[in-house]
């Protein structure tokens, strides 16, 4: 696969480490979260057949973590953002 890095352009996915769903960025608020919230955050997955927002760590590149929207049935990638500032135009 080829991931179109927002800063570096097309890069082979072999340069990246897959970290899983981008929901992992939504860590529960330790002040207010219930045990159920923590369980759902850590263990439950949408696992969609279709577009999936997921994290790819560019370990073999600039070490950015990217939010990649990829269709899990076709592997087609529709958007790539920097996790540190999603949506930023670069």
């Amino acid at each position, binding site marked *: *696969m*080829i991931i179109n890095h927002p800063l570096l352009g097309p890069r*082979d996915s072999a340069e990246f*480490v897959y*970290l899983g769903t981008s929901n*992992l*960025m939504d*860590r*529960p608020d*330790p002040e207010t*979260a219930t*045990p159920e919230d*923590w*369980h759902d955050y*850590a263990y439950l997955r949408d696992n969609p057949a279709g577009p999936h927002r997921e*994290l790819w*760590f560019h*370990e073999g590149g600039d*070490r*950015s*973590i990217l939010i990649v929207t990829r269709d899990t049935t*076709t*592997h*087609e*990638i529709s958007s790539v953002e920097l*996790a*540190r*500032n999603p949506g930023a135009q670069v």
Partner: protein
Amino acid sequence: MTQKNRLIGGQIDRNATLNFTFDGKNYTGHPGDTLASALLANNVRLMGRSFKYHRPRGPLTAGSEEPNAIVELRSGARQEPNTRATTAELFDGLSAKSQNRWPSLAFDAMAVNDRFSNFLTAGFYYKTFMWPAAFWEKIYEPIIRKAAGLGSLSMQTDPDEYDKGFRHCDLLIIGAGPAGLNAALIAGRSGAEVILADEDFRMGGRLNAETFSVAELEGADWAAQTAAELSAMPNVRLMPRTTVIGAFDHGIYGAVERITDHLAASPTGKPRQILWRIYAKQAVLCAGATERPIAFENNDRPGIMLSASMRAYANRWATTPAQRVAIFTNNDDGHRTAQDLHAKGVKIAAVIDTRPDAPSSMDYEVLQGAQVADTKGRLGLTFVEVVRADGTNRTIECGALGVSGGWNPNVQLTCHQRGRPIWKEGLAAFVPGGTLPSGMSVAGAAVGTFTTHGALKSGADAVRKALGLKGRAPAVPEAEDAPVNQTPFWYVTGCSRAWLDQQNDVTVKDVKLSHQEGFRSVEHLKRYTTLGMATDQGKTSNMGGLAIMAELAGKSIPEVGTTIFRPPYTPTAIGTLAGRMRGKEFHPTRLTPSHFWAKERGAVFVEVGNWLRAQWFPLPGETHWRQSVDREVLATRSSVGVCDCTTLGKIDVQGTDAAIFLNKVYCNGFAKLAVGKTRYGLMLREDGIALDDGTAARLAEDQFVVTTTTANAARVYQHMEFVRQCLMPQADVQLISTTEAWAQYAVAGPNSRKLLQKIVDAEFDISNEGFPFMACANITVCGGLRARLFRISFSGELAFEIAVPSRYGDALMRKLMAEGEEFDVTPYGTEALGVMRIEKGHAAGNELNGTTTALNLGMGRMVSKAKDSIGSKLAERPGLNEPDALMQIGLRPVNRDDKVTAGGHLMNALGPVDAAHAQAYVTSAAFSPTLGCMIGLGFLKDGGNRNGEKLRLVSPVTDLTVEVEVVSAHFVDPEGERVRA
């Protein structure tokens, strides 16, 4: 003239003669020959045996779709099983053996299977060999396995080398027939970066096999001329002998280039093959088409081949399987073969055409509306039985029969991303359809355009579309454009032992039985009969099977569907896919800064991940590793030892929020750590399990140096990046690894300070007062070399870790040895390191095994409740905090001479010994020279409250049972006075 069947013309170099052997017999051929064409020229039709019935077989085709003529090429360690004689380029000295026969190809004892074929029908083995159960491994299976397989491996290490590389282009053209060549021409002239790959060693595809002319030139000459023009273009790269094996996601193609397979031997340093990963913005597939056979009784005898292949042998290779041949066809293409062979002086016994209105000929007899009912000839074709339109029979004598059932577009690569081909009624064939791999278009015969003119044109059109070329389309070179009339004709009515899959011996009868037994989906048919599972991947067999299944099911072929074609396009050597990553180069090797010095010292090395570390340093006279390791431990504990611990991960954490950041990733507190101090830290995964442990040294208000275990360095670094970028994007913190920048040595033992004082520059006070336990500082050594000093201890002794820039590591180690002589300084390796950490009760990899919590490790109280840190919440789940939770403990044998084994399980002193009663297990064990007996670390249910209890350590797999006593994990200096001395 030994080459009895050599004809006039052809694209072979008659000026050179190549000698080769097949099954030990000598033959000659010419450059440009394949093994198959040369054997045919020498009047050899019999080249192999089939898989199941061991039927005699000759080549069916002249290309990579060949199911029959597969041989063991070369000998010794380079023996290459299942090699297609039809694509193996002839070279001088080539040697090949037939395979899957005994004792000889002409007389094969296993051919008896053919007599019993009635018993060995599709899937028969699922229905028998079941009693008694034990007989399967002992009797039935050995017999089956003995018969199984085709060629054999040499069982020796493959002596050849393989490379892997990367190429990028704007346009990849797959196949250099008329469509591909014309496409490349237009793309090349447009200035685009183009790669043209073809599996053949000669560009031109069918043009080399036909007598058509293109632009007033012989097709083959036009191809050669065009290839020459292309090779002169700097932006075009011609890759002959290159098979594109797979189309992968987003325009990445795998291609195998055969560099030296056509040579007797590889020049040193040169690879046999190269796996190219081609990154193509666009691709045009011009893979051509494969002729399809017709099934009739005994249609598998040597001499029976596809008509267009017979034509290719005659036109390109100037050879014929026999001097008297017949043709069986359902379309005009078969007649072309008759014409071309006739023109080269081959006697055409007859053209048997299923069509009542077949064209007749002046030069030879055409039997209209006729069919081949059966054939004769044990090791090669002698007669064909024909049923004429009027129902009368006729026997025709011939040594070869060309069969033409029409053509199937080579759609394989269009299916690699699960695109489904679609049925084209007019062609009675599948053409590319569904969603093609992104950026791929298809042209020429591969898309069902079977005329030369059509191919040239569609190649041009595809490229102009792919590259978005504007302006008038260049004129299409003049070429034949005869109408193609392809009507379906799959098998002769009433045939049963008519072969569909010639290699796997799947006949029409088998397909019918499969249907009768309910295996009616394509997938079931394929799996039950093994149709299309042979080395030719069903290229010539799938369609016939589908057609018959469709008829039986009363459905149309597209309703029955097609099996998915998967990579690779043709079978690919595993060595090629591995490239250079084998032997010692399988993974890169990491050497420590003191490696070269340690080697001089005669150290024994051990692989730790990719690192090579000194395991121990044997002295003369030491015959057993334990002698060296015990000495290293005792010397360190009594005076001073030095160990290279560079391999520990080092991560530089800087920024105004560095402390806040570490407070989040470590479960214990770091916010208030003073500058100049180091603290032990434990990191948890978010699920509450221990991830790694290490130290963090605060060198400045906004700078920490974090150390990790050797094994987890990369994972911790990644984990910290996740926390930084995904959980704390607003924190001012920057990370970078410095693991290899610093040579870091542990200097341990009561005399470690004295030794270091001779190295550390005088202005730095490293006395116990000036530099207490857990202190850290930037210093200089040996007269001004910048260095870092940490007072931390893994051994439990007074100890320091000193770091200098790696290039000086070698020199520093030598300096420490020299200056340390007065203290008998002793270098120690990973074994002694391990012994001392067990003696001290420090957890390491065996304890941090991915299932243990801070509580298990005896650090439950370290998890700060005052703050939120990664993993602290999920660590509170009840299952991880049960009253009898595992706790790390120490173990010593009740009988001092007994052995303690890591991996042993702990059982109560009394009661049953089984999994249900296990009290947990031993994680680490070693002989402690300090205590003079073996000791162990382990986990124990409620271990915190069972000190002094006697247990049984059982290890049935190493046949050990010993009585052990639960003791403190801190065998040495439990109060920790030494480290503070």
